[in-house]
């Protein structure tokens, strides 16, 4: 991961169906100089990931059409074993979080979260 740390425009992919959180995250991450690509549901997320390989992926777990778990599974099996994946969830359901980890998620953030917490996690992985 560290080989990308000095690249000025690292790409972050966000899959989130809730418009306000998406807006907030996008805004804050762009302000940090990242390139942000967004998907508003699981289907769009899987579509976009066919043709791009981001440096980091943030995905909500509960989304229409395809859940965040399916997104993680796709990333790990078809895209890359090393792309950091941060999952967001408001459910607090331990079994789902466990499942996300077992599928290969790196970080879990419970909603609501402060943007700075997210920025810290992103920085931790992207340097």
């Amino acid at each position: 991961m560290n080989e990308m740390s000095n690249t000025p425009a690292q790409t972050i992919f966000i899959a989130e169906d809730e418009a306000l959180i998406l807006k907030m995250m996008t805004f804050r991450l762009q302000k940090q100089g990242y390139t942000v690509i967004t998907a508003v549901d699981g289907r769009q997320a899987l579509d976009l990931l066919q043709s791009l390989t981001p440096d980091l992926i943030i995905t909500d777990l509960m989304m229409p059409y395809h859940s965040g778990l399916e997104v993680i599974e796709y990333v790990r099996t078809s895209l890359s074993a090393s792309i950091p994946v941060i999952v967001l969830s408001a459910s607090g359901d331990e079994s789902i979080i466990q499942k996300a980890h077992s599928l290969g998620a790196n970080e879990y953030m419970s909603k609501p979260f402060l943007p700075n917490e997210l920025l810290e996690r992103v920085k931790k992985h992207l340097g």
Partner: protein
Amino acid sequence: MQNSTTRRIILAVFAVSILLFAIPHFYENIFAVSVPAGMRLLIDAFIFLLIVSLLYTFYQHTRHADYLISQVPERQPSGTQYLDLLPEGVAIVDTEQQISYLNQAGKALLDLAAAPDNARLLSDWTARFCASCTGVNDPSPAEETLLIDSPVTPLRTLLVQTRPLFDAHGKLVQTITLLRDTSEISRNEIESKRVQKLAEQALAEREIFLANISHDIRTPLNAILGFSELLDQRKTEPDDRTYLEGIRTSGTNLLALINELLDLSRIESGQLTLEPRPVLLDDIVQAVAAEIIPKARRKNVQYRAQVDPDVPSVFMADRLRLTQVLLAIGTHAINFTDEGLITLTVQQRTADPLQGTHLLFTITDAGNDIAADKLEHVFDRFGRVSDQAMYRSGGTGLGLNIARSLVALMGGTISAESHSERGTSFCVGLPVDRADTPAPVLTQTTRTMRPRSIPAQMTVLLVEDNILNQKVMAGYLNRYQLKPTIVNNGLEAIEVLKDRSFDLIFMDIQMPIMDGYLATETIRQQLALTTPIVAMTAYTMAGERERCLLAGMNDYLSKPIHMHQLDNVLARFMPTPVSSYEPTKPTKPVAMGTHVIDEDFLNELMDGDDELLAEMVTLFLQDLPTYRQTLFDSAEQQDHALFKQTAHKFRSSLNSLAMLNTAKSLKVLETDTTPDPLAKRIQLTSLFEEINDGLTFLQNRLA
């Protein structure tokens, strides 16, 4: 000539001659008496003469018989000649479908000389009949109506009836057909049908005319009664109150007249139907008392109701119509009583338990007794017993006539009886079915909510083309601190609804450009809005309410609309039914909402960036109405899954605007599956109040 006598004489002569011829042999052979030859010759000659004369007589007789037989056909008419005398046509048709016989009347009816084709018409019919006769199982009707055309006579209708004739072996050989001209009967039938149709059409046209008149009278009445109600709410001078009371009484009387005319029209056209439901007798007695007592008080008249203990408290009846009957009689009693007592008694007739329950309602007044000859006209239309009394009372003279029709519809009897010097008794006998189920609680509909429980944020759209009625409704709503957005027709309503959402829509029905039905259908189907719509209509035709509900409206107000009716409608559709809710001040203090927004969290979220905040508030406002609607709807329909799903997502939005506590409250609601939609609605309402406060705070910060 008597044939039988002749025959007897001949037989007698023949017998005697044989005897005589045998006598000589008799003597000779049996008694061995010798008869002299001369004697024998004499006897033989005598016998010979006898035989000759006998033969001659026989010859003569035979000749006479032949003569008689030859005379028979000429002196007596044949069977077919009889048939020619019949006014009905008779035809005999053989199995080859040839008409082998047709009597005179038949020839005239079929008019074969002028129209030979008619013969085939008859043959075809008998052919069909014959075919059915051979098929035992499926005999075609032996009777049919044929239309006979001919160039000479006008189109005629013939009723043909046919019977089969079978031979000894059971084989069909001929058919005999009776032809009867029914043109006259048919013409009469057609004519009477035409007359009946005309009458029905006239009745229907009158019904429509009355409905339109009623609509056009109700529309200005809505303004008259509405403005007087609004004025009455103000502090007015005593004189003003008298004038207002006058306007209101006149308006109400006019309305009663229109209602009675409509009832009458419906009764005549057979469109008035009863809706029997389980009713509480107490409800009816109280409803009557509530109307009668105020009128009685004004006239120094007492009113008393008495129900026998054995009368069933619940039975099947049309509550409104039974009340109407008793009120018509009660009002009549008040009008004709200057002082004294009016009583309503309810008894049960228990003459025959097999005939079911029979109730007897008796209203006795203390008025001047009505003369017998006038009493029999008391139920007549406009059967005013005393024009002066009617004039004073302002009645229409239709009430008792309608009451009689209603009682007849209920299968009961109504009668009036005058007691000299002791007033008049009206008796209504009514067969009723007992109801096992208790009557639905009716108090709910009469309970009214206090205006102060209506939140000021409630947004109301008023769709009404009549400017005066716009003002009345606006005046009513202003009393609840509600300021409706007013548009003039359905199309304008749709344009407004594309940009803004409302909590409640009041929709007039008859409007130019686009009426209320079409507007509602468009709102429901094209705009896919579930905003409650309350119809306001001056139409009162049967089925009008159903038509409104079918178009997608939620409730129905009949014009003229009374202020108290709005209480119920607003209570039903307002976002909060919390009665302890304090009236909201029109302008909110700027500091409001600080408890909703977690400011530290907000600053963290936005990093002090108002541009982001503005964008997020805009995003939030875009989705807010949908969230709100879905949450209220799913709570109402107890769709827990949808509620949870929507709440979950909405919670994220709330958190994103730092309404952390509100989001927590919603989370509690999210897992709450209590089957009490009302409680949930109350909580949701206060939750959205909070959100509004929070938004106000955010907008103030951005301003």
